């Protein structure tokens, strides 16, 4: 089954701020770029997803819509709370994204998840109980899609949120494995081929050319032709649509092979110093992530690009350097990254975004000692103690408490979050106020 939060970011804002409860609210992406989440009330006003903020700013003001920047501290905390409540309800849980999780439970009265048996118990009531529990404990609305496979569960979840109900609210819980066969067919037919989970652009384009327009048609294609044309990926999708599970829950996230930190700038960068500061900031963030994952990087890439919209010719470039010895030491990584930033900078090419990717990650424990190690062991140890200390200070007193001078101070290119709400669940100074005044 798939459970996901409705309008997750907007809903989180409403949990800790009753002033926005029941009012139209939108949440903006990084740099207040475009609309990434809308409350049900904003949706009802016809505000569309993905609209650039500057285009609709006036309209939002006129309609009295509340606007918020993305408050990741709040969303991440609410997400963790959501997942731990879901864990109580399910036998196994795969956290798929900040607001989505696949869960496993067995249908009462036989009919396990691995077959398409429709005779088993109806789990709709169970789904509603889960919904009510999440609502009461966290204040978050969720939708539940129940089916024998992940692909079908995703589809059922979408249906739970969008099923036409003749003006009423959507059902919020939908059990594809227990509904009448005719309805199940109708749901599959109503799911456009592009909306099938995991289909990818190439496969969906082939399906369209072949006249396969919806999920049911893909399910009923001859398997032989599908295997010939689309290989095992297509066959797996088809099996999932037929109710035979091929994609198991991923319970332990695979060790990361690379890690990336990138941001758009609030104002375009057109001087070398500022680009160096930005790249240094991202590099030290990425190094911190590596140390938390207990990994070291064998290679490092810096990429930059200009805005595709500003009229001047588009510029995008990237450069990679291999480290002589895998490292997660901020100073070592900076020494590799900054020359790349210098090399990528072009005067008269204002940059809109830059990023740092750390690659060839390896476990800290499996690192082999190098004959040509730049530092003797005791100095190495002092370096890692220094890194550990810096990480601890930054965790304890807030990120950026201790940082490399190369990262700059008060840089004007930093992410714009002009309408950020408070870190209401994670920071003591930001707690919501409860009034005892009447």
């Amino acid at each position: 089954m798939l459970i996901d939060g409705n309008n997750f970011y907007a809903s989180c804002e409403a949990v800790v701020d009753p002033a926005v409860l029941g009012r139209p609210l939108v949440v903006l992406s990084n740099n207040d770029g475009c609309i990434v989440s809308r409350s049900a009330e904003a949706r009802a006003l016809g505000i569309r997803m993905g609209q650039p903020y500057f285009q609709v700013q006036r309209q939002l003001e006129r309609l009295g819509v509340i606007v918020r920047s993305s408050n990741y501290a709040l969303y991440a905390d609410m997400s963790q709370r959501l997942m731990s409540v879901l864990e109580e309800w399910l036998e196994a849980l795969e956290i798929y994204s900040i607001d989505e999780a696949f869960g496993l439970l067995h249908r009462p009265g036989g009919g396990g998840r691995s077959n398409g048996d429709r005779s088993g118990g109806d789990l709709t009531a169970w789904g509603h109980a889960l919904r009510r529990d999440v609502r009461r404990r966290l204040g978050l609305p969720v939708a539940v899609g129940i089916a024998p496979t992940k692909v079908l569960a995703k589809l059922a979840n979408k249906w739970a949120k969008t099923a036409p109900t003749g003006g009423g609210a959507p059902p919020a819980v939908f059990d594809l494995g227990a509904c009448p066969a005719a309805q199940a067919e109708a749901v599959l037919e109503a799911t456009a081929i592009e909306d099938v989970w995991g289909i990818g652009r190439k496969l969906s384009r082939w399906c369209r050319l072949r006249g396969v327009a919806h999920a049911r048609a893909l399910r009923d294609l001859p398997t032989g032709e599908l295997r010939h044309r689309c290989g095992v990926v297509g066959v797996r999708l088809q099996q999932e649509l037929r109710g035979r599970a091929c994609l198991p829950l991923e319970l332990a996230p695979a060790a990361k092979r690379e890690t990336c930190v990138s941001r758009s700038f609030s104002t375009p960068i057109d001087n070398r110093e500022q680009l160096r500061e930005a790249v240094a900031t991202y590099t030290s963030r990425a190094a911190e992530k590596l140390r938390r994952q207990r990994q070291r990087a064998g290679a490092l890439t810096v990429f930059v690009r200009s805005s595709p919209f500003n009229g001047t010719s588009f510029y995008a470039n990237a450069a990679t350097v291999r480290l002589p010895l895998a490292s997660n030491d901020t100073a070592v990584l900076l020494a590799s990254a900054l020359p790349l930033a210098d090399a990528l900078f072009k005067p008269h090419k204002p940059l809109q975004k830059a990023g740092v990717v750390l690659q060839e990650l390896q476990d800290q424990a499996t690192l082999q000692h190098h004959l040509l190690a730049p530092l003797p062991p005791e100095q190495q140890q002092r370096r890692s103690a220094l890194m550990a200390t810096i990480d601890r200070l930054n965790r304890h007193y807030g990120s950026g408490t201790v940082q490399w001078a190369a990262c700059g101070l008060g840089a004007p290119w930093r992410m714009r979050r002009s309408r950020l709400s408070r870190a209401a669940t994670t920071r003591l100074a930001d707690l919501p106020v409860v009034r005892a005044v009447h």
Partner: protein
Amino acid sequence: MALEKAPNAEPSTEPGIEPGIDLRIVPRSEAEAVVAKATLAGAPDPHRPPRHQPLPLAGAAVAAGFPSPADDYIESRIDLNDVLIRHPSSTFFLRVSGDSMQGAGILDGDLLVVDRAIEPRAGRVVVAVLDGAFTLKYLNRHRDRWRLEAAHPDYPPLELSEGDDARIWGVAIHAIHSL
């Protein structure tokens, strides 16, 4: 050593300071304590700050000779998280403003522990949503109607009409104030 801080407590964060922009000055002794801990402990590096008190190491140093007679009596230290929080995922902290709940022992400026998993019943102190703001009241039953009451003689009770139960946001379980 002083008590470990609760995971949510961030003592030196002043309001209005954007994390990640400027260096902050922390009291030297505190900073040193953190530095010392990091270096001494060999950086255990958990994915998040420790949720519980460290276990006492009373018996750990005994390498030879008689085992410590206290070994059998080791218990973990008292953890305020365990005392104050029953359901971590549904517990939120709020800051009290005003004196209308003085009679319930809840003072202006208190840190309020609110558990949303607890059923709001008559006699409970609840956080209600009124006019777009959180409000702290007693929930009570009066002549078959629910109503919200202040714990202060100057403030009249407020009747709840049917279907208003959705406005109860959570149940307050502790108020913490410094003396």
